[in-house]
């Protein structure tokens, strides 16, 4: 094992060296594949040493434990700094390989330059791994058992969260490489936009899923049902997401209208720079945050250097070459492209607010030594207005034709959507009896987004004139990218609805309860049945505890001791479910965690957390009713499905280059 590992270590830098030749244009494709193959071997070796619990590898000894369930042994590979950086590089080389493989139809020089840029990033990060964070460092003599993975990370949601996030982060490197290559070529045209868009789309979809997973994990694992904290680490992933979303939209303008070229290039550069900054923030722990599982100044400095070179280098190149990019054609303010400019502006401003808010504490401390905090209340106030504006113009812009639109006509077509969403807002306001404007405004906006999509589909199908049959047939014939747009935008609507409802209408009950006590919770009653303690390895009868997947299963192997509280969820006296909330203790890491009992539902989640026991034998019990909670993540999922649908559009099919605009894709 040691020997094999040593060989891989010596191979990796060679890969890096090999890739530097890629200016010899045709070498680029195959070397990208070789690099991918070699990095995969290294990664596979690391996963293998985690699986067999080879504690002579320092990383495994520090972060794994022989008693840990198998799945977390595997996922533990990237639950630490070194492993996650190797995963980063693996994905980087995967994307490089994919461009090499699928990009056959790209112009040779563009492809070579793109891959060369991709390789430079690869070299930087492989060097980073080798010099500051070698995952294969040996530990001799090998300790008898490992230090275990942080128990918060021993969870399926968080196990698959980093790979998606990294797919997103690193996927943006492809857009970045394309942008830099285009700057070098001095040419940006509709074809370029068509090549870049699928990669950006793919990265954005992965980023969406990754962020949603992280948010869902925080919701059920951190124990009070918060789902977004405006934490620096979250912001670090949110900023590239915002810019990638802007990039997706501006690339359409480049493709269709041959305009906004320089801006689109700039967005591509920014998106990846922010990804790098995200990596820096997470890996250096420079901003203290709830999630800083890794802290090391040397590594921070190294990533900062990479970040600096990448950002300064690409922006210099941009300043030098951007004037070459000439936009063509007319540009009217009231038009699809005009609306997309607004979309870009608002997304970019939103990102800027997040950026300033995230870095302000650092800047203030650096400038005058004073410490300030920037938290959720700031972002709620400073960020939300721009998103509200964005959501207001979205349906309008989506209906506008290219080149020139008639504002009055658009409003006329959206009359029903506007009336519908306003009346929904009004009805909600009346129904909830003066609880503030958050829910009515939020729900009206969400309705506006979704009704806007319906109006668009209605018109595209021509239902009014042609009747239902023709209408549906026409809808079936719409290009996939149009369907993707419709689905993604309605996903956004669902998410806004969930956010508004959970923020405005959550019911909370905190009390001391003894077994037998009944807690009223909205239309439900929660009956506290009692508590059971289980030491490590003790047999456990699940006794009808219908639970989310992370609760202990009967007879399963466990590396923690646990205290389980049982609750009956009753509605009008009838038993609905038995819910179990756990307090766990992981002895190896000496760390407690909480597993909330959640009864997920379409319209609401019931969320119960067992707290501490008091001196008089009563338990602190927190119960929440969270309306439409799941819509937040369902909305995110729908958005990413929309992205995927769009990705299957013929025009964007990876590598497929069609110079002809396809007016209507025949139905299958």
């Amino acid at each position, binding site marked *: 094992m040691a020997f094999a590992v040593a060989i891989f270590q010596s191979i990796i830098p060679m890969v890096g060296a090999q890739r530097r030749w890629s200016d010899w244009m045709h070498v680029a494709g195959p070397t990208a594949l070789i690099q991918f193959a070699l990095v995969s071997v290294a990664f596979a070796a690391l996963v293998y040493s985690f699986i067999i619990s080879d504690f002579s590898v320092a990383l495994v000894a520090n972060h794994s434990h022989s008693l840990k369930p198998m799945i977390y042994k595997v996922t533990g590979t990237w639950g630490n700094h070194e492993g996650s950086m190797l995963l980063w590089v693996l994905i980087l080389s995967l994307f490089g390989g994919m461009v090499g493989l699928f990009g056959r139809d790209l112009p040779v020089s563009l492809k070579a330059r793109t891959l060369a840029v991709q390789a430079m990033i690869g070299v930087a990060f492989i060097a980073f791994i080798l010099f500051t964070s070698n995952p294969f460092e040996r530990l001799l003599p090998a300790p008898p058992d490992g230090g275990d993975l942080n128990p918060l990370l021993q969870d399926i949601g968080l196990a698959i969260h980093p790979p998606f996030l990294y797919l997103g982060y690193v996927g943006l490197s492809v857009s970045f490489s394309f942008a830099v290559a285009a700057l070098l070529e001095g040419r940006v045209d509709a074809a370029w936009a068509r090549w870049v868009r699928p990669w950006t789309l793919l990265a954005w979809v992965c980023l969406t899923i990754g962020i949603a997973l992280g948010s869902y994990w925080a919701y059920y694992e*951190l124990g009070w049902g918060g789902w977004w904290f405006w934490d620096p680490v979250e912001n670090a992933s949110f900023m590239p997401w915002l810019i990638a979303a802007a990039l997706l939209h501006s690339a359409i303008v480049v493709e269709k209208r041959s305009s906004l070229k320089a801006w689109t290039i700039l967005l591509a550069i920014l998106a990846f720079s922010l990804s790098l900054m995200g990596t820096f923030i997470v890996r250096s722990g420079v901003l203290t945050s709830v999630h800083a599982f890794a802290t090391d100044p040397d590594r921070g400095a190294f990533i900062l250097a990479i970040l600096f070179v990448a950002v300064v280098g690409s922006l210099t190149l941009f300043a030098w070459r951007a004037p070459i990019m000439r936009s063509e054609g007319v540009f009217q303010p009231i038009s699809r492209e005009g609306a997309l400019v607004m979309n870009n502006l608002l997304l970019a401003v*939103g990102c800027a607010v997040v950026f300033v808010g995230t870095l*302000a504490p650092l800047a203030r401390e650096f400038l005058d030594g004073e410490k*300030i905090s*920037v938290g959720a209340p*700031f972002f709620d106030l400073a*960020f939300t207005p721009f998103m509200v504006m964005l959501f207001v113009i979205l349906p309008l812009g989506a209906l506008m034709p290219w080149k020139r639109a008639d504002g009055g006509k658009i409003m006329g077509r959206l009359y029903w959507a506007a009336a519908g969403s306003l009346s929904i807002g009004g009805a909600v306001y009346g129904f909830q009896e003066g609880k503030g404007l958050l829910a009515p405004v939020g729900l009206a906006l969400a309705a506006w987004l979704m009704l806007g999509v319906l109006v668009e589909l209605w018109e595209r199908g021509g239902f009014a004139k042609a009747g239902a049959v023709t209408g549906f047939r026409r809808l079936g014939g719409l290009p996939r990218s149009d369907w993707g747009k419709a689905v993604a935008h309605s996903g956004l609507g669902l998410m806004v609805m969930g956010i508004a409802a959970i923020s405005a209408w959550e019911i909370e009950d*905190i009390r001391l309860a003894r077994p037998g006590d009944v807690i009223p919770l909205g239309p439900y009653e929660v009956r506290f049945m009692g508590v059971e303690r289980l030491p490590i390895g003790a047999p456990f009868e699940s006794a009808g505890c219908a639970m989310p997947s992370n609760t202990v299963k009967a007879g399963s192997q466990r590396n923690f001791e646990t205290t389980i509280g049982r609750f009956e969820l009753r509605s009008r006296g009838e038993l609905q479910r038995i819910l179990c909330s756990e307090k766990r203790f992981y002895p190896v890491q000496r760390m*407690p965690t909480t597993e909330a009992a959640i009864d997920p539902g379409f319209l609401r989640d019931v969320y119960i957390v067992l707290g501490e026991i*008091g001196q008089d034998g009563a338990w602190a019990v927190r119960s929440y009713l969270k309306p439409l909670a799941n819509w937040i993540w369902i909305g995110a999922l729908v958005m990413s499905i929309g992205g995927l649908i769009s990705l299957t559009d013929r025009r964007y099919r990876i590598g497929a280059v069609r110079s002809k605009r396809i007016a209507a894709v025949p139905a299958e």
Partner: protein
Amino acid sequence: MIWRAVAIMLCLFVLQPTAAHAVEPDEILKDPLLEQRARGISKELRCLVCRNESIDDSSADLARDLRLLVRERLLAGDTDQQVIDFVVERYGEFVLLRPVFSWKNAVLWAAGPLIFLLGLFAAIAFIRKRPATGPQPLSKEEEQRLNALLKD
């Protein structure tokens, strides 16, 4: 200062970002309106020893002390602003999760609106610069090239 440094060290090494047991049942005030105000204030105040958590979300002892302090002040008849001022006086601006509007924070607060306006002007300038009418007629040379292409 030293106390704060110690607190932060404590936060980094002892307190894990874990299972938050925020507001404890015994802290809750009898008057629901007052309690609601207390919760609102708690969401604005940072748990000093934690990583980016409000005292409403945090399980740390200090957060509990602050929550009790907030409720004590409210019971004493303070307004929300008085309570917040009181806490800021004791712990500094660091305790505020929403930084104050001040010249020192001007960049922070003004960045969004300012960039938005600048961007709007830039966009308007960009659109103005573009010809609002249709494309220019083809030049002679382009016409010849087009004809050549059409013949193919």
